[in-house]
């Protein structure tokens, strides 16, 4: 048997396969299709201090090998989460990670403080890269100073494993990664979606109510792999890779590029059982290549 376990911050994951925030609901939506306990972890959707209605519809449009979304962090706020969702999902035998967003640093901090009290939430993912909200979101994630201000404040408030999710919409993503590493991030995850847009040429209107939205899916994978490779060479903390992973091969590609774990997002829409297939593929791949421990191929690309 091969060893699929990986470590990020203080946490151990039974395998490197997580689900990406905003694409996997609260996990429950997929419970009919897969055994959630087999996942390395799942990251639940972007949670903010207050209830948010998100953007008007249409919020989605398909693009070549991908999709644009403009959900805009719709969620019922952290208190609702704690009261209504947390009790339902806390006993899964996997790591449940909450993705945290905010319009101000204070928002982030308050959410972090509340999450710090939840026994079964061992990690959070700070989202400084959402392209679909006006205030906060990506604005924090595109400068080293903005990023480290948020992360520094969250670090004081949250004492367990803290992952920071980076925006790809920047000139040099390694700068941002180094900045958040410097203020105490335990890990960085990348990438979030790319800012894009699409126009219906017959109506001459944008497909999304917000004009621009976030691009995800295999179309972005070559760029995301490149960023993971650059960042993993620039920081010492573990990197979580994502962006267009559609199958086991793609997951291995990110691991070889330097990712300690991977997240699957859009792929869940195409195949709701994909996470399990990816876990099995990684295991088969290692056996086929006579490798005992997945940790030994992290960043293992041969140059």
């Amino acid at each position, binding site marked *: 048997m091969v060893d699929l376990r990986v470590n990020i911050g203080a946490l151990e994951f039974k395998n490197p396969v997580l689900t990406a925030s*905003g694409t996997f609901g609260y996990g429950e939506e997929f419970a009919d299709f897969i055994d959630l306990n087999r996942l390395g972890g799942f990251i639940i959707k972007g949670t903010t201090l207050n209830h948010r209605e*998100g953007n008007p*519809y*249409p*919020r989605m449009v*398909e693009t070549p090998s*991908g999709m644009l979304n403009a959900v805009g962090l*719709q969620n019922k706020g952290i208190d609702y989460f704690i009261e209504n969702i947390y009790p339902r999902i806390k006993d899964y035998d996997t790591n449940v990670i909450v993705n945290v967003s905010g319009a101000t640093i204070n928002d982030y901090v308050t959410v972090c403080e509340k999450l710090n009290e939840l026994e079964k939430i061992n990690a959070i993912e700070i989202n400084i890269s959402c392209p679909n909200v006006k205030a906060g979101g990506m604005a924090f994630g595109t400068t080293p100073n903005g990023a480290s201000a948020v992360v520094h404040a969250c670090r004081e408030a949250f004492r367990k494993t803290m992952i920071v999710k980076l925006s790809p919409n920047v000139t040099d993503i390694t700068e941002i990664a180094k900045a958040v590493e410097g203020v105490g991030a335990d890990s960085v995850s990348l990438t979030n979606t790319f800012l894009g847009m699409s126009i219906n040429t017959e109506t001459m209107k944008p497909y999304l109510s917000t004009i621009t939205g976030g691009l995800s899916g295999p179309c972005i994978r070559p760029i995301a792999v490149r960023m993971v490779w650059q960042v993993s060479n620039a920081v010492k903390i573990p990197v979580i890779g994502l962006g267009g992973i559609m199958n086991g091969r793609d997951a291995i590609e990110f691991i070889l590029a330097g990712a300690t774990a991977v997240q699957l997002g859009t792929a*869940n829409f195409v*195949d709701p059982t994909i996470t399990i297939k990816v876990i099995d593929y990684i295991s088969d791949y290692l056996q086929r290549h006579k490798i005992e421990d997945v940790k030994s191929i992290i960043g293992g690309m041969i140059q």
Partner: protein
Amino acid sequence: MKKYLIDFKIDDNIQLSSNYSLIKLSPCSGLLPEVEGGQFAQIEIPNSKETFLRRPISICFFDKKNNQLWLLVRKAGKGTESLINSISNTIVNMMLPLGNGFSYPTKPNAKVLLIGGGVGVAPLLYWGALLKAHGYDPLFLLAAKSENDLLLKDYFEEIGNVYVSTDDGSAGEKGLVIYNTILKDKTFDKYYCCGPMPMMKGIAKIAHTNSIDCEVSLENVMACGVGACLCCVEDTVDDGNVCVCKEGPVFNINRLKW
């Protein structure tokens, strides 16, 4: 209801015209799961270079005896076109049954009208059959641009009386469906409606005016189909934005901000 991911085989693809197909499929193995009237499937488009996500398609009929599902598909773009052109034996993967279907009238002998426009008639066929099997006597009002777009009329006639409106008068009454004579009858207990948005809004208005209970089946752009991505929201009176794929596609008009 438990959701399944199942490979189907196309048994029969009946081209109703160059724009519509009635596709009959059966599972590659095993029995079909139960389906409610008005539920839908998320369909992987086979062999299509230009589509990426699944496409939501209503379950038009659930033929338990023959272990077969029917889909009624209109060519809207690349995905539906590819479906319409799929030959027999093509394998089609589906997630189903998804969403919440129509609900039975509260009154035992309720007088019900099922109103379908264009390809929107699709979910009404199975729902009509279920209503009939439960002792109701459903009437149908089918609307289309012209006679050529009037779909499955013969099938509906097997279940109940069918009224027709066409824009050009080539069949039934001429004009928009909201002007059809049957809608003057204020004694209906419930409407079930599926069709283009303006039509459903028109029907909802009539229902409101005449205090007729009314359920509509909404469309929206969908990615996941299971309430995970929040791409497909409709604004409700009671709960703000909710997912059409999970809390719908069928909504009572009282929940909607129409």
